[in-house]
């Protein structure tokens, strides 16, 4: 299946773009998607532990299963204010 990852803030630089299409095995989880990203992008790999993932207006857990066509957002460390 294919999912889309939106890379917010500096995570777009780590992953080489603001939007990434990713092939995942069926029943893949958020954690699986991050693992693929980490293999592909070393800059992301070293920061993976500091990144949260959002779907819509909520943060999701790494164990969250993703449907085909899912859209997830990388939330790197924030600097609001």
């Amino acid at each position, binding site marked *: 299946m294919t999912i889309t990852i939106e890379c*917010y*803030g*500096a995570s777009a*630089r780590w992953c080489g773009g603001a939007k990434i299409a990713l092939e995942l095995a069926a029943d893949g989880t958020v954690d699986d998607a991050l693992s693929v990203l980490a293999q592909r992008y070393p800059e992301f790999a070293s920061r993976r532990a*500091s*990144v*949260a993932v*959002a779907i*819509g*207006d*909520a*943060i999701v857990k790494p164990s969250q299963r993703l449907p085909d066509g899912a859209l997830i*957002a990388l*939330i*790197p*460390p*924030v*600097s*609001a*204010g």
Partner: protein
Amino acid sequence: MTDTLPRLRDGALNLAEWLAAPAPADCGALAIFAGTVRNAHEGRAVSGMTYHGHRPLAEARLREIEATAASRYNVRVAVAHALGELGIGDISVIVVVRGGHRIEAFAACRWAIDTIKQAVPIWKEEHYIDGEARFLEGTPLKSVEES
């Protein structure tokens, strides 16, 4: 009424909009914090700031901060954050607290701005007068309850 004002706004915030409503009759204290863009950071001359945000989550978190601060401190709270390009001196974030007395109003105001900085998915991209730009190092996103 500030209830209808958007919590996220493109461009600088206007503090006057958040103060237009009359003081509630049972409130003796109004505490406000506003953050403005500075002309220098870590020794570098800054020309402006671009605020990037994850809009749906940022808006949900700002509303959650208002509700949590109101219930923890027994006050009324409104918060707002700017997105997009801001110039030096522009207001990027506002916290307005109305409460019975100053102790809880200050405490809620302080908690709200501290929590905004840790629990709202917004990123500062700082622009320097030499033409460079960079995202500031941030802090891993926390939940509102953790703050």
